[in-house]
């Protein structure tokens, strides 16, 4: 009953599609990290406008389902003359969405740095810029590393939604093969295993980074 041949036959295609899953999700996380850093900085700034923009951004992209955001970017933006291709709509929307989560994760990291540490840095004569780049950012990233890894694995899974804007990725191809061969069990099990391996690798990298930059030495 269980058809191993189908798995062997489909595996190269599924792996090819999973490359797109990885490319789309990791590109989005990278761009989203930049957006998140900016929004986090705005959220922590003294400027009321900056805090307002950050709060609005986060509440919108965190409050609206990713699926709806994708549909809006692909089907509603043409209305105002913005006709983006599928791949741009996919990466852009994923990045904007994860940017909101990353902004909050990073904000939590910055807030977790003890004020005494910053005071001490100021005492030994470090400039504001040095304090930011040498102490605050590395510490915030280190403190939030588990949450950042968590968010990255979430994005790998969330990328299964981007087929609604016409992008081929792992889940979409699995669906296509499953309905064409009438053998969903084997295909979805394989696709699930591929996601598991991708996220396993991300988790492993996260653990490596965690042990490489140990909190004890950082403090």
């Amino acid at each position, binding site marked *: 009953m269980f058809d191993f041949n189908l798995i062997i036959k489909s595996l190269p295609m599924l792996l090819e599609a999973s490359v797109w899953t990885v490319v789309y999700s990791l590109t989005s996380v990278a761009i989203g990290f930049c957006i998140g850093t900016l929004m986090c900085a705005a959220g922590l700034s003294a400027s009321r406008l900056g805090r307002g923009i950050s709060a609005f951004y986060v509440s919108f992209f965190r409050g609206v389902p990713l699926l709806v955001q994708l549909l809006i970017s692909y089907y509603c933006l043409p209305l105002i003359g913005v006709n983006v291709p599928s791949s741009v709509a996919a990466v852009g929307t994923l990045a904007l969405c994860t940017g909101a989560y990353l902004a909050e994760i990073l904000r939590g990291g910055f807030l977790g740095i003890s004020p005494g540490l910053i005071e001490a840095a100021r005492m030994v004569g470090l400039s504001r810029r040095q304090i930011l780049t040498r102490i605050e950012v590395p510490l915030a990233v280190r403190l939030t590393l588990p949450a950042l890894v968590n968010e990255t694995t979430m994005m790998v899974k969330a990328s299964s939604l981007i087929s*609604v804007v016409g992008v081929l990725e792992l889940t979409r191809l699995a669906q*296509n093969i499953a309905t064409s061969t*009438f053998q969903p069990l084997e295909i979805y099990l394989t696709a699930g295993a591929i996601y598991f391996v991708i996220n396993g690798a991300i988790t492993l990298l996260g653990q490596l980074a965690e042990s490489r930059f140990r909190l004890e030495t950082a403090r």
Partner: protein
Amino acid sequence: MTHLTRRSAVSRALRLAALGAVASLAFTGLARAEDLLAKVKAKGELTVGTEFQFAPFDFVEDGKQSGMNKEIFAEIGKELGVKVSFLDLPWPSVLPGLEAGKFDMVAGPATITKARMERYRFTSPIANATVAILKKKGDASITKPEDIAGKKVGSAKATAQLAQLQEFGKTLPTPPVVQEYVDFSQSYADLGAGRIVAVANSLPNIAYLAKTKPNVFEVVEPPFGKPVYFGFIGSKGEDAKSLMDAVDAVLVKMKHDGRLAALQKKWFGTEMATPDQVTEASF
């Protein structure tokens, strides 16, 4: 809402979201005043939206698109002198994508229904879409459609096929027990596993299935539903008229010179008579 005549692995919620997100599009009249045929020819490319999950029209074989649509559109492309490129999307996204101008027309095909004709322009039909019964190979208890009375029969949720099955069931002494599935592939799996004894779906789809899995499935002739047809879909707007007329001309020409019949024979295992144009849908 109209009955969606197609299966979909995506939930109904997605369908609603897709429609909701683009509902405004219908009322705003997109800035597509330019003539679509002229645009397609200038670009040298006809972009077609479809879903690669509707064998034998569109499906995936060795990771690539295969099926009748590809071959029909190859002829259309040849006659119009343009390249044809397909975009694969979940079905609930396909019609909204057409309205947002993401592609020039939609393959599918979809059952030509009254409700849909109000909103879209259908091409000349390419196949008979009348609903018939698929049973397990060699099941002697079902030899005609009426034999499903009182038995467990599957179909896909929110489809025109399901609606026809329910209507037909009412005419039987004991109506069948209808099992609704998210998409047809699940109903085929359950038929294979013996959880249901029959599946009601459009003839070309089950004829193809019986042809590819002759040891598992068998079609019960004749179809029982109201006669309906499958057609490709385009926009109803003035700008799309020239393109749709040109595609229609090619399809009618293919009907008359036997090219369409040859493709029907190849993909359904049998030829199907279709009118040049459906002016009034029966359903």
